[in-house]
């Protein structure tokens, strides 16, 4: 009897960790004619990154379709979306179905680096455009690049490290210790930032790797504290970053050391609260309160989602709109023709000014260094950032000449 009970618990525990069956909310397959332009938005709809992309990304894509006019060549533009649950295999299955059966022409968002690499690989194989916004691994346009189908739109680990790393070392923060999420993205972020720090004359004193979705960071922070590094770089994302910051402030780490969040969006700052997050440096590609254009767009988004958008949502909007404009200009949804147009045309919208998609698929645009405001400085909800510096796209991203993309090697 006892053994039976224990067995049941074990089975259930396994069940729990894999909870939620693939809930692809694929709309009924449209007419199978190729003259319908159909896009897919793949994201984490309910897991740790759901506020980072998720339903907000779908809303942003829908806004782009509406602003475009809703129709292409006289037919309504269709959109499908699905939850990849942060699993590369689920992402691959859904995307394959989209490409093969549902005649989806291009997919967007694709956050989570493991997902992004899987989806981009599939796009390469099927010759379909895949636009990645939320994922940040630099491999997307380097080792695993796909210049004929893949676009990396928002930021990557090299740019994040470049902006924060250089700025902080210049500011005197020349010794670093990393708190790293133990998977591809974290390692890549730690390595890229570490190189920037060293190149700028700083030192990397060490790193500690924590499992993804750790709930308690206190012991890792004690190790960071013991390192006596001036800067503790958080090479993690989402809930892990939030919990690291909370624990750091609780354990008094922020008294003698400074935190640098390498990937943190405004939705995370909102979740931590200004009391805890104040003074933190972070990099984003966009902020809602930069100019009248961004504010107007954010207001429309907020009416639908009841919260402000982050840079990822803005990037999804911009990339979908850019894609639709390119299809229109090319007069076809043929992959090669559309991609050529997308690369030829500079991007000038509320997300980026003079943005350009490079040969390797990297969209190059300005990046911004922000500091989180003190509670007293914040005048309204979501009034969180002070702009500390703008880094030109060509200085933030890896120059094309140094690209490790094999397909570009002549």
């Amino acid at each position, binding site marked *: 009897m006892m053994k039976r009970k224990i067995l049941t618990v074990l089975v259930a525990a396994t069940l729990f960790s894999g909870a939620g069956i693939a809930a692809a909310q694929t709309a009924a397959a449209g007419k199978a004619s190729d003259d319908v332009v159909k896009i897919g938005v793949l994201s984490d709809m309910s897991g740790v990154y759901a506020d980072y992309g998720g339903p907000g990304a779908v809303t942003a894509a829908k806004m782009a379709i509406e602003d475009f006019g809703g129709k292409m060549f006289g037919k309504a533009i269709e959109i499908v979306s699905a939850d990849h649950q942060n699993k590369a295999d689920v992402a691959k299955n859904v995307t394959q179905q989209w490409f093969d059966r549902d005649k989806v022409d291009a997919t967007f968002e694709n956050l989570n680096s493991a997902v992004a690499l899987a989806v981009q690989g599939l796009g390469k194989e099927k010759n379909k455009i895949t636009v990645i916004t939320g994922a940040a691994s630099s491999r997307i346009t380097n080792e695993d690049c796909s210049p004929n189908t893949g676009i990396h739109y928002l930021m990557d680990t090299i740019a994040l490290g470049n902006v924060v790393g250089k700025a902080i070392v210049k500011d005197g923060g020349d010794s670093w210790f990393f708190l790293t999420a133990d998977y591809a993205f974290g390692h890549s972020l730690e390595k890229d930032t570490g190189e920037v720090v060293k190149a700028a004359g700083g030192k990397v004193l060490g790193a500690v790797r924590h*499992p993804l979705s750790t709930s308690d960071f206190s*012991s890792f922070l*004690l190790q960071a504290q013991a390192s006596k590094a001036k800067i503790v770089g958080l090479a993690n994302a989402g*809930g892990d970053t*939030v919990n690291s910051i909370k624990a750091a402030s609780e354990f*008094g780490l922020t008294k003698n050391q400074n935190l640098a969040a390498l990937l943190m969006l405004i939705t*995370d700052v909102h*979740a931590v609260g200004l*009391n805890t997050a104040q003074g933190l440096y972070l990099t984003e590609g966009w902020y809602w309160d930069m100019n009248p254009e961004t504010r107007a767009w954010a207001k429309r988004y907020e009416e639908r989602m009841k919260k402000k958008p982050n840079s990822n949502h803005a990037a999804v909007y911009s990339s979908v709109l850019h894609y639709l404009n390119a299809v229109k200009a090319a007069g076809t949804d043929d992959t090669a023709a559309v991609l050529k147009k997308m690369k030829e045309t500079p991007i000038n919208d509320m997300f980026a000014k003079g943005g350009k998609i490079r040969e390797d698929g990297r969209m190059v645009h300005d990046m911004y260094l922000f500091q989180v405001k003190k509670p007293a400085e914040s005048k309204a909800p979501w009034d969180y950032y002070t702009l500390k510096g703008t880094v030109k796209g060509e200085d933030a991203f890896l120059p094309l000449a140094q690209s490790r993309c094999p397909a570009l090697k002549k």
Partner: protein
Amino acid sequence: MTEIFGVPTQALMGQLMIGLVNGSFYAMLSLGLAVIFGMLNVVNFAHGAFYMMGAFFSWMLLNYFGVNYWWSLLLAPVGVALVGIVIEKTMLRWLYQLDHLYGLLLTFGIALIIEGIFRDQYGVSGQPYDLPEIFKGAFDLGFMMLPKYRAWVVVACLSVCLATWFVIERTRLGSYLRAGTENPKLAQAFGINVPLMVTLTYAFGVGLAGLAGVLAAPVYQVSPLMGSNIIIVVFAVVVIGGMGSILGAILTGLALGLIEGLTKVFYPEASATVVFVIMAIVLLIRPAGLFGREK
């Protein structure tokens, strides 16, 4: 400075202290599970959801009604317990005669529903809950800075655990409870209201989870996912300690917190796995758990 396997003793002491803090969380959560399992024979998979609910209730009390932390400590667990009573009265009680699997599936479903509702309402990033003013700052222990709040958590958890153990094992009420579990018919013949006992036990068990949630609110992010992050470890604790064993749950909770803390020093990458390795070994050697009795 002296070192043990290349790790300064000072750092080691700090990690052990933190292990104790986490261990007391584990102890309190697994205690609730053990009580429910011991008395009701229900594997309560909704425990993590109740823990999350406790944290959210205290956040709501603060943000919607301006109720402070101390009142939350009392009100939020009561709120959670009330939800527990409704669930026990309307759903769970029909399943006692059936195999454990049914109770497990029901509570698992309830957990997913509760989590889904909160996720829909509040998103996944969670909400901040500030530390109460009195707990800001830290004690300097020489080898580490111990935040005052963490110290309070250890004290609170251990006192609640001991009180629960005392009530169940040493008082008249506890003896009724144990009699009701051992032989419900006979106990009823002696005039004990067994169904009421059962309902109250369930309410108390989930109330403990709610209380742990309130204690966790200021240190962790109040997020719909916080329950499912911790529940698997807590189940492992209960299995290692011996299902239904109250003392086992408390001691194992503390011990595993310490072991996990040590792993974070020597091989941090394994800190999420070590608990399950121990569980596998314990099950191989003592299938009923360290403190469990073979039936």
